[in-house]
């Protein structure tokens, strides 16, 4: 865990230095350090996987397949030999992206390690007819021992090695990591020898783990999502659609304070996604009002329904508050309504 954290830290420091470095020689050396550090991170993460722990990603995000391939290459020793073939424009969803990268890293590492130092390793991604993606890694190595192919595929398929197996599990730690991760995400990983020489590794990523590549604006909303609801809020007000529910709701906050609009109680925690345009346009008659921080904007529109909406409060708060608070509540409510009326006259409405 600590190794991983240190490696993450070092990675970000290195990135800053690399960005500033203008001398090609020093930059090359920095790249080597970065590369070594990335491999340390990879091994630390693999240990976590083998220990059966989930590797926590501080900032999970949807990663395009192109970047999945390149992130995987980043942690491979002989990365310059990895060539990118056709990789389609799809992305891996955030909760699986890191694990797919780890799987691909191990397979690419095997491919580059067991093929001639001059031969490229080609990785490509194709869509399958059932909506999944087939990642394909092709090397020009000597190939696997025919006996081992079946055993390794059994290992990758999550089946225990038979007692007769001639494989040394310790020699295939990388594939053990792959098998582990493949099991948890239902990836299908297979190795095949090509008759022409070399090995092909394929990873079938199920369609459930895929999505479109988020547009440049896409990744941003993901983090500041709590900030994003406010902008739409003015819209219900602009829509000018009468919403009867809100008047029914001010009473509870009124009991607690004179200014109903500033009372925190007016914004129950579950209300964050309530004030959508849809509610305003469709939910005119909605019986279950969703009070929200958007109240100041929404109330003006509700004033229109005042005669119809005013009666419910007497029945409503009676259940929730002591009778002696009742006159105060109605008075405060009336004040609130008149407040709202004045604001609506000055009008964000038109």
């Amino acid at each position, binding site marked *: 865990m600590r190794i991983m954290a240190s490696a993450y830290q070092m*990675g970000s420091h290195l990135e800053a230095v*690399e960005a*500033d470095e203008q001398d*090609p020689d020093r930059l090359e050396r920095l790249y080597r350090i*970065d*590369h070594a550090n*990335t491999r340390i991170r990879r091994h630390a993460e693999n240990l976590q996987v083998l220990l059966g722990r989930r590797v926590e990603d501080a900032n999970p995000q949807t990663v395009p397949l192109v*970047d999945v391939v390149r*992130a995987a290459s980043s942690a491979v020793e002989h990365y310059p030999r990895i060539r990118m073939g056709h990789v389609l424009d799809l992305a891996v969803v955030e909760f699986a992206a890191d694990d797919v*990268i780890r799987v691909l890293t191990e397979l690419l590492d095997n491919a580059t390690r067991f093929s001639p130092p001059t031969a490229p390793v080609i990785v490509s991604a194709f869509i399958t007819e059932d909506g999944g993606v087939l990642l394909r890694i092709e090397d020009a190595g000597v190939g696997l021992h025919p006996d081992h192919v079946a055993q390794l595929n059994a290992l990758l398929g999550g089946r225990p090695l038979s007692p007769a197996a001639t494989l040394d599990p310790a020699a295939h730690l990388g594939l053990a990591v792959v098998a582990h991760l493949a099991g948890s995400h239902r990836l299908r990983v297979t190795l095949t020898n090509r008759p022409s020489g070399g090995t092909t590794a394929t990873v079938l990523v199920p369609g459930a783990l895929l999505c479109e590549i988020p547009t440049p604006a896409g990744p941003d909303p993901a983090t500041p999502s709590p900030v994003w609801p406010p902008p739409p809020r003015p819209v219900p007000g602009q829509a000018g659609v009468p919403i009867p529910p809100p008047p029914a709701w001010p009473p509870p906050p009124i009991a607690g304070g004179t200014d109903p609009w500033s009372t925190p109680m007016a914004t129950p925690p579950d209300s964050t996604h309530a004030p959508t345009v849809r509610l305003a346009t469709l939910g005119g008659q909605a019986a279950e009002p969703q009070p929200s921080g958007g109240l100041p904007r929404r109330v003006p529109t509700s004033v229109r329904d005042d005669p119809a909406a005013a009666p419910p409060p007497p029945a409503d708060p009676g259940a929730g508050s002591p009778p002696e608070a009742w006159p105060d509540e109605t008075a405060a409510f009336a004040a609130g309504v008149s407040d709202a009326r004045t604001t609506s006259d000055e009008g964000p409405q038109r």
Partner: protein
Amino acid sequence: MTYWKVRPYVLTAGRTRTRQPLLVHTLVSVPHYDAVFASALLPEARTLYEHARRAARSVAELSAVCGMSLGVTRVVVDDLAATDRLLIHTDHHNVDFRLLERLRDGLRKLA
């Protein structure tokens, strides 16, 4: 923006040198924009190509608008130039070295 696990050296296959000198103020431009060619490029090269297409841009400028480090930008520019898709304006005739030297000396005195 590229995913953080994609390290810069992977974008250039570890290369840091360019075939020809690319200074921060070297201007590059796209002689004939080819949309099909652009769509086949990797994301970084594609953004760079798209940005250089509108007007001649300096290497430093491209590095900034594409959000890539200078080291990576140089190699990407160099690769594109090697396929003749990007034109590197190498004429530095208008640079008066004596003027630059005097400027440098003046700055040294100030420092």
